[in-house]
């Protein structure tokens, strides 16, 4: 989550950031992070979570 927050400023608007996390909390917490920070949660595939930067 912290690394996602740090990676976000380097991404361009519209770009997708892929997070690799094996923590079971990530499945709920990454979508919740997107909601709180106004970003778009795209999809999860196993331990990979895609987040699109929209703001």
């Amino acid at each position: 989550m912290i690394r996602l927050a740090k990676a976000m400023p380097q991404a361009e608007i519209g770009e997708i950031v892929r997070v690799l996390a094996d923590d079971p909390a990530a499945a709920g917490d990454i979508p919740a992070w997107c909601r709180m920070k106004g970003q778009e949660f795209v999809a999860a595939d196993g331990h990979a979570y895609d987040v699109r930067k929209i703001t």
Partner: protein
Amino acid sequence: MDYTGDPAGAHAYLDAATAAPLHPVAREALLAALSDGWADPAKLYAAGRRAQQLRDAATAVVAEILGVRPDELTFWPSGTAAAQAAILGGLGGRKRAGRTLVHSAIEHSAVLHAARTADAVEVGVDRLGRLDLDAWADAVQAGGVALASLIGASHEVGTVQPVSAAAGFCADAGVPLFVDAAQIVGRAPIPSGWSLLSASAHKWGGPPGVGVLVVRKGVRWLSPYPSDDLHRPGNPGALALPEVVAAAASLRAVVSEAQAEAARLSPLVDRIRERVAATVPDVEIVGDPVDRLPHLVTFSCLYVDGEALLHALDRHGFAVSSGSSCTSSTLRPSHVLEAMGVLSHGNVRVSLHRDTSEADVERFLAVLPELVAGIRKEAGI
């Protein structure tokens, strides 16, 4: 470490939803009953008859408060034991109807563990932690449902559940409803329409080790345990009678204070909800802001390890609970927070009780923002 003689929780114990501090009436009744109610109530001599009197009086008090008949109520060694007996015995009594248990996604883990013995169908909740009633109606009306289970109010986020409406759907489908009322009894009005109900004395200020199970007349319940010589439905073996007497006495005292306590604590919960949102950046206040328990509030902080925050608060004298992973006995985050789709890390549950003062809450609110900021700084945020 030097022994200081400070009793546990002397600073600001804010975890009443786990165990409320012993009510003074419970302490008095417990001490009296230890001298007076140690004998076996099944025996015919004087000491046994005295114990039986105490047991019957305690049963009558709790039954009256819950609005049920004394012969519908039994005492168990814990709220967990009572809840699991409700599930297992409720399923056993309805074997012919099927083996499906419909339950909300936010039941207590004791119920979820018992649910694994059945074909469990889980019904979700919304972002505020309120049961999806449409999905509930569909689930209980499907064939083969033996029992339904709905927690009266969430022990983790405080959201009060639409029990009466859920009970209506169960009644239409002919399915008995079990309500885990551990957080409600002694604090909020008991809902109607259920068939089985459980509660736990140490959640209302009674001693630990007393659970209550109510099975309404006409509800089929089969004990999941081997019987004892008394052949009565209920927990086999000796009753912790002094604790039961203390539980009943404290419940009567707590219920008489409940309205005033709710009126005092609920604004303190509102204050925590508002102030934490205003003073801690990147925080999510969880649960229904209005339709909630009067004494409980939960929030989650981004970029904060729940365990670290728990320890930091403990060092400042605050005892709170957390639904984050690694903060209790599990490595997983709370299934309640997961089901709601809210942030689970950096989670804190604060639950107040009759000894909680406004000054305790103010001190907590003053300390929290710097502790969160300190943990984030260490993590490089």
